[in-house]
């Protein structure tokens, strides 16, 4: 038996990040005195350098390595760059927040980098095992991060809840994978697709497995009926962790859905589309209705996140109609655009909560935003941009995200879903408007000046401007999404 040395080149970024994770672990262990800032700067360096490596090794070709367990394509590269980007911003926003609470330990950054590595593996997996390993790597790091503020009962509880439910969801996913393996005899996505295409797979076993796969994906995306953990974990985790939780993992979850369902099981698309239809509609309805009565803004954003992920699924479920596939690219790229848009908005919204918080004070209640226009007109405007964007009002990116997925749904002829989405958007607008209302129409409860480091202020401003600017000129990002998918399919 001869051993073939695999081609490491397509996995250069993953290898680099893995090495850097070890470097961070070792250096911060030995250099205790500067461990905190060292951890921070090394992780930022890792993310930025990884972005350069990913871009440098990007060739627009689809290449496989490690016995076809690993795939490198443009979609994966684009999503990875977005993941680095959002992780880097999340770490930057969170730094002084954590320092104020004395929990800016180097382990925080180590876990964040390990989590990034997990997401990268998920995005580039071509095999169910690689996918599972990436998922667990991300999830385990996240469980620890959620419980990171170990002196806080709420944070520990959230970590526990997330861990138990997450383990259950992983079990469901594994079970589904084993069923698919039983039906098709392979765990490789392209092999699964081949087997389904040739109708060699046992259909009923395959569909049975599919149900569990969809359940696992739904849990990771946090959509109904697997959304229970989302509000509690978002609220319980420290805001800096919630910020991480609500951004990059959504992109990884999107990649997971695309790899499993589209790369692997495209030929039974109409079956999983039907499941996603109910999942998406239920998420949009429940997310928006439940968000109305929230007084805690993190919880409100958690429910809003549930509805946004439902919207994102609208793109995934409109690909194939009556066996016709020419809508697929348009539909999937609109879902991808939605996911990216959501991450940009989500970064800014949690970034605002961090901005208003300070040592000993969490700006968690919606009332903490009262009168922000009097305290800081500019940051009130940033928050207003984000809220209107999430509500889907132009000129903000959220409008084009909604337009793109609704366009896909209408093109697929699912008018009832479009109607549900639209009616719920109006209801959703109510709670976003309430945030704008408290900022602009109410008197401030808290007149302390906003105190935040200059880098957070600058980046958050840029983030707010991006929400508006991408709403005025969305073409570039849309084309990148479409092109990345086209080159990868």
């Amino acid at each position: 038996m001869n051993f073939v040395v695999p081609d490491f080149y397509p996995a250069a970024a993953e290898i680099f990040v893995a090495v850097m994770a070890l470097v961070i672990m070792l250096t911060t262990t030995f250099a205790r005195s500067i461990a905190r800032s060292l951890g921070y700067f090394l992780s930022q360096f890792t993310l930025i350098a990884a972005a350069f490596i990913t871009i440098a090794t990007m060739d627009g070709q689809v290449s496989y390595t490690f016995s076809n367990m690993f795939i490198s394509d443009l979609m994966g590269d684009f999503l990875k760059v977005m993941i680095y980007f959002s992780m880097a911003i999340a770490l930057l926003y969170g730094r002084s927040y954590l320092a104020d609470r004395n929990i800016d330990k180097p382990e925080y950054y180590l876990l964040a980098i390990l989590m990034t590595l997990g997401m990268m593996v998920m995005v580039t997996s071509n095999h169910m095992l690689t996918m599972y390993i990436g998922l667990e790597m991300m999830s385990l790091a996240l469980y620890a991060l959620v419980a990171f503020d170990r002196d806080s009962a709420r944070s520990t509880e959230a970590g526990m809840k997330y861990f138990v439910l997450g383990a259950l969801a992983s079990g469901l996913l594994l079970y589904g994978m084993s069923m698919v393996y039983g039906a098709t005899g392979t765990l490789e996505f392209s092999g699964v697709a081949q087997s389904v295409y040739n109708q060699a797979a046992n259909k009923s076993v395959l569909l049975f497995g599919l149900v569990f796969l969809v359940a696992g994906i739904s849990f990771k995306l946090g959509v109904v009926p697997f959304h229970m953990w989302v509000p509690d974990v978002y609220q319980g985790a420290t805001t800096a962790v919630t910020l991480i939780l609500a951004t990059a993992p959504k992109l990884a979850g999107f990649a997971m859905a695309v790899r499993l369902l589209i790369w692997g099981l495209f030929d039974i698309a109409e079956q999983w589309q039907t499941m996603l239809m109910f999942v998406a509609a239920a998420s949009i309805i429940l997310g928006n209705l439940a968000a109305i009565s929230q007084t805690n803004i993190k919880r409100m954003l958690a429910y809003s996140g549930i509805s946004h992920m439902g919207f994102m699924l609208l793109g995934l479920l409109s690909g194939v109609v009556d066996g016709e596939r020419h809508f697929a690219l348009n539909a999937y790229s609109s879902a991808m655009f939605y996911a990216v848009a959501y991450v940009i908005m989500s970064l800014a919204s949690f970034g605002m909560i961090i901005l208003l918080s300070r040592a000993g004070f969490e700006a968690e209640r919606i009332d903490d935003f009262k009168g922000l226009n009097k305290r800081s007109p500019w940051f009130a405007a940033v928050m207003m941009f984000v809220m209107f964007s999430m509500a889907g009002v132009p000129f903000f990116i959220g409008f084009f995200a909604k337009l793109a997925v609704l366009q896909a749904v209408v093109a697929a002829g699912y008018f009832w879903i479009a109607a549900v989405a639209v009616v719920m958007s109006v209801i959703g607008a109510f709670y976003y408007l309430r945030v704008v209302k408290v900022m602009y129409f109410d008197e401030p409860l808290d007149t302390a000046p906003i105190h935040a480091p200059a880098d957070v202020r600058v980046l958050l401003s840029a983030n707010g401007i991006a929400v508006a600017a991408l709403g005025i000129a969305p073409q570039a990002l849309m084309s990148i999404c479409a092109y990345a998918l086209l080159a990868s399919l």
Partner: protein
Amino acid sequence: MTDIPLLSLAVWVPIFGGLLVLATGSDRNAPLARALALLVAIVGLVVTLPLYTGFDVGTSAMQFVELMPWVPRFNINYHLGVDGISVLFVILNAFITVIVVVAGWQVIEHKVAQYMAAFLIMSGLMNGIFSALDGVLFYVFFEASLIPLYLVIGIWGGPNRVYAAIKFFLYTLAGSLLMLIAMLYLFMESGGSFNILDWHQLPLGIEAQTLIFFAFLVAFGVKVPMWPVHTWLPDAHVEAPTGGSVVLAAIALKLGAYGFLRFSLPIVPDASLQQAPLVITLSLIAVVYISFVALAQADMKKLVAYSSISHMGFVTLGFFMFNPLALEGAVVQMISHGFVSAAMFLCIGVLYDRMHSRQIADYGGVVHRMPKFAAFFMLFAMANAGLPATSGFVGEFMVVLGAVQFNFWVAFLAATTLIVGAAYTLWMYKRVVFGPVANDHVDKLKDINGREFAFLGILALFVLAMGLYPFPFTEVMHASVDELLRHVAVSKL
């Protein structure tokens, strides 16, 4: 024809000017903010004037067209252009903006820069609505214009402003999202075009037409507002500051009516004909029932708000009788209502600034202390009641004449309501202005100053000019109205 992108200037000068005003920051710089806002508003008006002087009245085609790709991924274009109907609204809007800036000059004391900026940005967005020829571009302006008005009502409004602002926003958003679905359907049916002019030519089955018609009816009906979705308007008006009420009545209500002309009638003509009895019934309810509601109001602003609904009922009535006289009358009525309702709200604002009350019962005998004001108020009240020789008369008279051709009883109902209109306006006028001086507060009133005289005087000139010689207005729209009716008469089935 010039190569200057006049419509882009009309849209973007106020928006960028508004941002500039916003940059002046805190109230320490209020005088600068005011001066800058006035300058921007005047420049905004000046750039729209060549639209009138350079307008070719002989054609119904779109003029001053600008076309650039915006989001090629979905074939969305930055496509602007005006015809004889929309050009008038662009100019009216720019004009009203100047008035609003002047009217808020001394009255608004806190967050001046934000107030002025909100109105300027709103004015630019509304110009965008009137000149957009791309469905998505139209929608984007249509929605985005909600944001500044929401803030204006919520920040500078009366005691119940928050409720009113949210109600206003959600009502209009609900309507316009349905329109978005209709637009996406049209996009698909037309093979991937968001061009409104392409949609005009698109053949559609009667079922699709009916669904689209109702989606548009909800979107524009809320904005007009038509009975029974009118309830947001009195709330919004009562709570809004004077400038907000003026823009709301003079321009924002016209957006809905304009939507019928640009979307409903030409895109789904068969469904429009089929559903005309429904719209006519709703319009008549608005005209008759709302007039009686107005009669019972104790709050001046609410009274004028209800009278607006009733006047807008005439407009939708005129649209759906499909004859040139009624349609042209309806458009004239829209312009006239822009002047008259703006003036009515400004008059109430003048009183409110002095007395901080809008209750009719708190007034009486104002004429003894404010004779100049009383004269202006008289003129505008008469115009609101539709007195001949004022602009209010022309539109209503044309619509009623058109209605006679259509159906005698419709005309009869509409015409008798003119009496109720006169009753509620003049009765309010009598209670507020005439009689003995009611109380000490009224006794201390000072007559209007030069600034107030200026804006009321200009509006009075327009109201009279339009009443005595409406030809400059009708001339511009004539070709477009004829073409619209010709287009509607051809079935798309």
